[in-house]
C-alpha cells in the first residue's frame, strides 16, 4: 500500500484507458450524430487489427504501413456499414439500429474466422524492456501507444473543431433539418463522419492488438468498457469519452488492492451507473446535450 504501488497502478490504468479511449471516441461520434450505440464498433476494431497485421507482414514488417492499412480498411468497413445499413435507420427507434449493429458485429467476426481461422496472431514488433522513471516502471512501447492514441485524438479534434468539414458535421449533429436548409449535404458529411469513426476504431483495435494478441473475440470484449467510457463522458462529447476512458481505466486499476482483479471490471460499471444517476447527461458534459 505504498505510493509507488499506486503510482504504477494508475499508470497501468492510464495506458489501458488510452487504448479504450479510441473506440469510445468513435462510439460517441456515431451516437451523437446517428443516435444509437453502435455495437459493431468492437468487431471493426478486430477487423482493423487483422488488416494491420496482414498489411505489416506484406509490407516487409513496417508497422507504420500496417497502421495505415488497418485504419483505411476499418474506415472503409464502417463507411460500407453506414451506406448499406445504418443510414436506413435514421428516424427510427434507436434499439433497431442497435440490434442491427449487433448483427453486423457477428457478420464481421464470422467472416474473419471463416477466412483466417481462430489462431492468435501478433504484430511482429521487437520487445522493449521497461525503464524506471521515479517510482514508475515505464515500457517504451506503452509510450508509443499513448502517443499514437493522443495523436489520433488531437487529429479528430482538429477535424471537428477547425476544419469546415467539422463545422458542417457539428451542424448536422445539432439539427439535421436546419443543416439541410443551409445547403449542407448531410449524406456527404455523415459519410465523412463514418470514415473518421471507422479509422479511429481500427486504430484502437491495432493498439489493443499490439498490447495483447489478435484474436477474433478481442474487439467484442472491449466493447462494454468503451460503452461505459462513452456514457461516463456524455454522449456526443469526444473529450468526455476520453476523460471517461481514462477515469475508468485508472479507477479500475487503483481499486485492485481493495476489491481484487475480478471485481475491478465491476468497478468500471459501478462508476458508470453512479455517474448516470447523479448526472444523467454525462459526467463531463457542461451542458446537457440530450438529443
Amino acid at each position, binding site marked *: 500500500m505504498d505510493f509507488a504501488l499506486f503510482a504504477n497502478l494508475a499508470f497501468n490504468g492510464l495506458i489501458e484507458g488510452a487504448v479504450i479511449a479510441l473506440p469510445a471516441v468513435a462510439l460517441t461520434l456515431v*451516437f451523437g450524430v446517428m*443516435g*444509437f*450505440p453502435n455495437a459493431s464498433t468492437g468487431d471493426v476494431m478486430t477487423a482493423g487489427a487483422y488488416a494491420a497485421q496482414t498489411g505489416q507482414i506484406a509490407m516487409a514488417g513496417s508497422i507504420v504501413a500496417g497502421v495505415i492499412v488497418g485504419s483505411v480498411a476499418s474506415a472503409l468497413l464502417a463507411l460500407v456499414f453506414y451506406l448499406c*445499413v445504418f443510414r*436506413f*435507420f435514421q428516424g*427510427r*427507434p*434507436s*434499439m*433497431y*439500429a*442497435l*440490434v*442491427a449493429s*449487433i*448483427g*453486423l*458485429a*457477428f*457478420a*464481421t*467476426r*464470422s*467472416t474473419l*474466422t*471463416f477466412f483466417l*481461422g481462430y489462431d492468435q496472431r501478433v504484430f511482429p514488433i521487437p520487445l522493449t524492456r521497461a525503464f524506471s522513471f521515479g517510482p514508475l516502471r515505464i515500457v517504451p512501447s506503452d509510450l508509443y501507444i499513448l502517443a499514437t492514441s493522443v495523436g489520433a485524438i488531437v487529429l479528430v479534434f482538429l477535424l471537428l473543431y477547425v476544419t469546415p468539414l467539422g463545422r458542417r458535421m457539428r451542424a448536422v449533429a445539432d439539427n439535421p433539418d436546419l443543416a439541410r436548409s443551409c445547403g449542407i449535404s448531410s449524406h456527404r458529411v455523415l459519410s465523412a463522419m463514418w470514415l473518421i469513426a471507422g479509422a479511429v476504431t481500427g486504430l484502437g483495435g491495432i493498439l489493443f492488438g499490439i498490447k495483447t494478441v489478435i484474436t477474433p473475440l478481442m474487439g467484442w470484449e472491449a466493447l*462494454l468498457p468503451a*460503452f*461505459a467510457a462513452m*456514457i461516463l463522458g456524455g*454522449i456526443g462529447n469526444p473529450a468526455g469519452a476520453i476523460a471517461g476512458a481514462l477515469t475508468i481505466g485508472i479507477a479500475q486499476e487503483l481499486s485492485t488492492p481493495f476489491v*481484487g482483479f*475480478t*471485481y475491478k*471490471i*465491476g468497478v468500471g*460499471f*459501478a462508476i*458508470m*451507473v453512479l455517474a*448516470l*444517476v447523479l448526472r*444523467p447527461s454525462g459526467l463531463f458534459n457542461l451542458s446537457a446535450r*440530450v438529443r
Partner: protein
Amino acid sequence: MTAYLIAMAIVALIYMLLTIGLNLQYGYTGLANFGHVGSFAIGAYITALITTNGGFAYVSLPASVLGAALVAWPVALLSKRLRTDYFAIATLAASETLRLAIIEEDWITNGVHGITSIPNMSVALGLDVDPNILILTLLIAANLLAVALITRMVKSPFGRTIEAIRDDEDAVRALGKEPATFKVKVFVIGAGLAGLAGAFYAHYFSYISPEQFLPLITFYVWMAMILGGTGSILGAVAGSLVLVLFLEGSRFVRDILPGVTEVEMASVRLFVVGMALVLLTLLRPQGLMGDFRKR
C-alpha cells in the same frame, strides 16, 4: 428423433418465457433491458441452490421468481432517471456485474466450478414420471399462463397506460399518471418471468456455471423478440420458435452439405445469425407477427 424434438421444444419454451418477459418490458413499455440474462441467472442459481440442498421445486420455483423480481427492483428504479439507450447499457453492465459476483462469491455459488447434479424436474417435485415430459408440460403451462397474464394486463387500463408510456411518456405524465411506477412494475414482472425460465433451465440442464449466463443469451432473446415482432404476444411465441429452429437447424444444414467442415460451419452459423438480425431490422422491423402501425 422424438426425444430430440422434445429437447428442442424445451429449449424453445425456455427462450419463450424469456422473450415474453422482454416483450412486456420493451415491446409494450419501451424499457430497453439488455441485462435480461441476469434475471435468468438469478432464477437458475436460486433453484440450483435450493434443490441441491434438499429443497423441493415447490419452494424453489416461486423463490426463483421472487428472487429475480427482487434483485431487478433496484435496477428498475434506474429507469426513472435514464433514457432508453442509457438504460440499455446500464442493464447490460448490471448483468455483467452480477456474473462477476457469481464468479467471485464462490462460498455460495461455487464460483467458476459451477453447481452440478441439480435434480431433474421429476425428482425435484417428487413425482414418478418422465422428467422430460414433465418439464415440457410445466413449461407449456407456464407459457400459457404468462401469455394469459400479459394479454389481460395489456387489455386493462394498466396495459393502455404502459403502451402510452412507450409511445409518449410526457403525454402520460400530463394526464397525471406517474410513468415511473408503471415502468418499475413492468420491469419487475418481466424479470420474474426470466427467473422462472432460469429455474426450468437449471432443472433441465442439471449443471450451471457463470459461463452460461453471458450477454449473448440476452442478444438471442432480443433476436427472438424482433423476429416475432415487438409488442406482439404471438410474436414472442413465434420468434422464440424461429430462433431455436435457426440455431439448431444450422446443424442439419451441415450434415447435408458435403464439403463444409464444422469449423467453417461455426463461422457460417454466426454469419447467418448476424445477417438475419440486420435484414430483419432493416426490411421487416414489424417482425413476423408484429403490427407495424403500433410502432
